[in-house]
């Protein structure tokens, strides 16, 4: 049984992950010749080929034929996998003849050598990255940084399609007509918000002739005025540029009768605002006005007459009929002064005496440099100037003209895409350094998720940024800056999959209390925690084995470490040390426990897979088609006990066991956390049993064990570095990239006594060839 469980497991994993099935079809250039290290060949021959050879190799992996493989990437993946298996005591299977320690050591050394050699000879070099469109998150941060304003329309952008788990992978990001429409509307809205057409000395005046307004109730007579002879209301929709103070003015008069004046009732958005006694009389119309707050966008304002008075038989002819006559309404404002937006402070100068045309030259250059992240060419400046001046001729309004310029820059491919021009230089396949400006952009989007700031652009202009010492110093400066919180919000939130919190739907009947505040608190905890580890330069392993986290009161109550919430404390996240070792670190964080659960129950499988995918860089192969369900289905499972039973059963199937032995074991370590991440010791099925045995024999029974095992795993730093690499460079990490990362990691480790921290990993990625260099593309002129 043991063999049945473990043996095919490890092989199949290797097979389906690395075999023909998943391997990309070899590119012509990837198939250049290579030779298998004789040490490896020997080891395979002695310990592996018994099972892994034709005619029916276990897991479809025929190691005996490796020599003849054309796909270099596949060779490297399989060697890496084999090394991991042998090192982790998982292969050869425990019930077979084991290699002697010395044999193992020399196998590992040979594997290392082989991987290094193949990486060095890799024809892909630093690789090529496809042009990247700004992701939604990047777009928003970039414009806030430049203009100081946001737009709600950002919500309307189509979802960014993910590649390799991230939303900033050039190849996976599409651009269709819908994108263009949304980006256009966004550019327009942002430009309007950034450059407001407001002159404090001369507020906008919107006049509406009453006779043209719409009839809401009653039957007023409309001629040159609106004549409200009986109870009636007329209304007007007013679109306003922003929330603020406005003056509402109405010119009116009344036919007076009875013992009160004609009354004008004004409602704003169907709510009574105020009433005016219109005592003015025919030919002596007066203006009735008052300031009020109105909101941005659409406001409905109605003018009503509700104290109609009609005594046709009254002896006094002038006391028979009370009517209200309205001439016009004006909305003036906004009147409240507002701080200039970042864009206004930058571009608008109402006090200047120099003619707009003269000032524009400089403005245009600045705008292009900042928004397109590199200096303008002469022709670009000219074209933008022309666009703006043409508008200026029509409107004679500086702000409106600059606004159009801004709108054009924001809709341009130079802004929306991260161009890395220069790729046509040299022959195909030649490697060249990215331009300093392209480097500045890669760096700033990696660490800040926004465009480069003035300091980076200046260094780029001087061609200094690419100097190693300068580059390193900039990384440190940028990490220190608050803007690097983007690494937590954008990178970590995707890496750890907590972005999926929004889509989580725990069954409210079983798991009450999952409201928006709790959900946000959960996501926030993980972001704060990652940010803390990064900023305080804590060891990478502390992500896992910390005995603390950062909590607000809501979470503290949720975790049961605090009885009540303090008044008015929703956002304060503070470091909390847990007295018991279970909680603390990523693995006990609710966000992660929620996104790895099903709506009605926890999922040890998903949790185990999450660990393998994200922390150990050992993603299990997906189940073969048609084999990815429990016999008997999921519905009967409503307790951990029945789940454990069911999982044990499906591990009897060697096909399932191949991956699930490890995945389930890791997953069971989390069983004390329920769907919402709360601690539990029992559920409907009885006492929670969180014990499990890993394929290499190590046992775990509590989250403490789980933390210890994962924190100590040598693959943890490499797994994180690899994720950072994908996010930073915008493409898949190929086997050669991983080997290079591994090499730099080892060097770094050897060069000092302190443990690795996240800054080290960031630095590793930034200084990698793939980040700084690029391979020339094929030039096809047409």
């Amino acid at each position, binding site marked *: 049984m043991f063999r049945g469980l473990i043996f095919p497991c490890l092989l199949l994993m290797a097979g389906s992950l690395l075999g023909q099935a998943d391997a990309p079809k070899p590119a012509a250039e990837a198939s250049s010749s290579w030779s298998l290290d004789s040490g490896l060949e020997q080891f395979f021959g002695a310990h592996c080929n018994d099972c892994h050879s034709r005619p029916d190799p276990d897991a479809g992996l025929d190691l005996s034929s490796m020599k003849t493989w054309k796909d270099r990437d596949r060779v490297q993946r399989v060697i890496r996998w084999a090394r991991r298996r042998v090192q982790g005591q998982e292969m050869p299977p425990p019930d077979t003849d084991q290699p002697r320690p010395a044999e193992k050591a020399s196998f590992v050394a040979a594997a290392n050598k082989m991987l290094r050699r193949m990486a060095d000879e890799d024809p892909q070099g630093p690789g090529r990255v496809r042009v990247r469109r700004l992701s939604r998150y990047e777009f928003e941060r970039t414009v806030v940084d430049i203009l100081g304003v946001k737009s709600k329309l950002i919500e309307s952008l*189509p979802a960014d399609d993910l590649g390799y788990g991230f939303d900033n992978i050039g*190849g996976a990001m599409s651009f269709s007509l819908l994108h263009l429409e949304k980006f256009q509307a966004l550019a327009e809205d942002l430009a309007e918000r950034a450059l407001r057409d407001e002159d404090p000395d001369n507020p906008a005046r919107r006049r509406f002739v009453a006779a043209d307004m*719409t009839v809401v109730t009653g039957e007023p007579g409309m001629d040159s005025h609106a*004549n409200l002879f009986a109870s009636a209301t007329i209304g007007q929709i007013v679109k306003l540029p922003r929330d603020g103070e406005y003056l509402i003015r109405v010119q009116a008069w009344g036919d007076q009768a009875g013992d009160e004046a004609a009354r004008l009732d004004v409602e704003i958005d169907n709510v009574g605002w105020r009433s005016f006694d219109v005592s003015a009389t025919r030919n002596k119309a007066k203006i009735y006005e008052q300031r009020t707050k109105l909101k941005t966008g659409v406001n409905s304002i109605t003018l009503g007459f509700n104290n109609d008075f*009609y005594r046709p038989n009254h002896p006094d002819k002038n006391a028979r009929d009370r009517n209200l006559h309205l001439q016009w309404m004006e909305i003036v404002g906004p009147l409240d002064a507002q701080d200039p937006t970042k864009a206004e402070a930058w571009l608008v100068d109402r006090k200047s005496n120099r003619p707009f045309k003269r000032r524009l030259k400089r403005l245009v250059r600045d705008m292009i440099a900042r928004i397109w992240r590199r200096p303008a060419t002469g022709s670009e400046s000219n074209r933008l100037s022309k666009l703006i001046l043409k508008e200026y001729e029509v409107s004679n309004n500086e702000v409106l003209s600059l606004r159009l310029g801004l709108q054009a820059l924001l809709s341009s491919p*130079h802004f929306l895409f991260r161009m890395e*021009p220069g790729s046509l230089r040299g022959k195909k396949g030649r490697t060249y350094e990215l331009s300093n400006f392209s480097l500045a952009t890669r760096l700033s989007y990696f660490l800040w998720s926004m465009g480069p700031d003035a300091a980076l652009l200046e260094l780029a202009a001087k061609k200094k940024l690419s100097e190693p010492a300068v580059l390193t110093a900039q990384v440190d400066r940028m990490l220190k800056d608050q803007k690097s919180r983007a690494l937590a919000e954008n990178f970590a939130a*995707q890496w750890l999959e907590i972005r999926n919190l929004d889509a989580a739907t725990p069954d409210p009947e079983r798991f009450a209390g999952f409201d928006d505040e709790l959900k946000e608190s959960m996501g926030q905890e993980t972001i704060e925690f990652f940010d803390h580890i990064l900023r305080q330069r804590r060891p990478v392993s502390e992500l896992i084995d910390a005995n603390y986290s950062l909590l607000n009161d809501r979470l503290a109550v949720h975790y049961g470490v605090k009885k009540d919430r303090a008044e008015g404390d929703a956002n304060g996240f503070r470091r909390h040390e847990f007295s018991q070792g279970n909680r603390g670190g990523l693995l006990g964080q609710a966000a992660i426990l929620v996104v790895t659960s099903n709506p009605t129950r926890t999922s040890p499988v998903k949790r185990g897979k999450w660990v393998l995918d994200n922390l150990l860089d050992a993603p299990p192969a997906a189940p073969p088609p048609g084999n990815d369900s429990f016999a008997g*289905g999921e519905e009967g499972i409503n307790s951990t006990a029945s789940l454990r039973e069911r999982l044990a059963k499906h591990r009897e199937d060697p096909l399932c066991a191949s991956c699930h032995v490890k995945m389930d074991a890791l997953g069971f370590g989390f069983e004390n956390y329920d769907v919402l991440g709360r601690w539990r010791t029992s559920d409907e099925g009885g006492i929670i049993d969180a014990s499990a045995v890993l394929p290499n024999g190590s046992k775990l029974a509590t989250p403490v064990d789980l933390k210890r095992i994962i924190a100590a795993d040598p693959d943890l730093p490499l797994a994180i570095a690899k994720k950072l690499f994908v996010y930073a460079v915008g493409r*898949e990490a190929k086997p050669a990239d991983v080997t290079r990362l591994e090499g730099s990691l080892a060097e770094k480790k050897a060069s000092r006594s302190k443990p690795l921290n996240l800054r080290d990993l960031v630095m590793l990625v930034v200084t990698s060839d793939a980040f700084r260099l690029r391979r020339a593309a094929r030039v096809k002129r047409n």
Partner: protein
Amino acid sequence: MANVNRKFKLDRRTFLRGSGVCLGLPWLDAMVPAFGHFADIERTAPQRFAFMFAPNGMKMDDWTPKSKGKLGKLPFILKPLQDLRSEITVLSRLDLEGGQAQGDGPGDHARASASFLTSAHPKKTGGADIMNGVSIDQRLAEHMGQSTRFASLELGMERGRSAGNCDSGYSCAYTNNISWRSPTTPVAKETQPRAVFQRLFGDLDSAEGRAAQLERERRRQSVLDFALDDAKKLRSKLGAQDRAKLDDYFDAVRRLEKRLSAKPNDNKAAVSPPKNLLSGNGGGFENRLDLMYEVLTLALQSDSTRIATFMLGNAGSNRSYRFLGVASGHHVLSHHGEDPEALKKLAKISHFHIDAFFRFLRRLADIKEADTTLLRNSLILYGSGLAHSDHHHHRGLPLLVAGRARGRVKAGRHLVFKKGTPAANLYLSILKKAGAKDAQFGDSTGVLPSF
């Protein structure tokens, strides 16, 4: 009450033309804003084509009618269509070979959506080199999309995952899109009914007059010109792959320009927004689904577009249909392992979706066009890219079409094809019915007999 004879009522249409659109305001509910206009459908009665994608396969025995030929009593999932069965054609035993693994291992959900309308075998990639085929709707749009403001319309109910992997090494581009303009370019979809309505007919929040709108369009036009100029210059400086990306941008700019320069439709009748659209997006998934169908109806009715796709869920959707009393996720349920309880719930979800689809068809059937109905002028495919949910294969798919493509389909039947007939044959047949002369679509081997 004096001077009654001096009073007159404002023509509301006049008012609206003057001051733009007024919505979200209870006191204006009665008004019909002049968003868009129904074209002269009476005269043209164009064909319309729409494609609905249901995720996670089907409980086939509750889908497939017992006997061939004339449709009689429909099985559980299709039951809501009973009264409309004379307009329905159930198509059995059609295969999507492109969806099969073909040595690529797991990832059937991604392949189900990617191949659903393309009949292609999508390249397995996490994003580096996406490669699929052109989808039938986009081919139709190319063939007949020029005459409408929107060559095609892409709708969905789910935005898509925001972290992690979508399906076993396949980029989310495959699970989130069924419309493919080119093998490398999926067409993004819109998931909020309100946004779709605004895109088609105008800004709901805007109180702008026509003059202001024209002014806005003029500015947009000059911005587009500027961007196009950039793109042209840039193009010559990029490598082939990057150029392809930029060409997507290019292509979009050209199409948008064309739309901006097109003359608005004739003023035949005004389009008014569905009621719930005004009060936000109203309620949960059920309401949003109905609203989306309503907006789609308006799009087709007003001849704003003649081609549409609608993803009722993304591939592998794990939505919890709690309002049906089904708390487990849809995807989890689809791995039922023949558990009767799970199967029942799975069928319940499919039944719910067919019920919503029925309400959509009912609306189309109630819209008179010339001497027939909008439904009869249309051909609307409904189905999934997976057959048996748990087996994850793509053969013998659950597919049906509603409508008659303007008399080109003899509806009301259950057609059972020869084993191994590609779904692409259906698509080739559809192209033929649309008047295209294509000899091949995807892996087609010919047109469907007797369809």
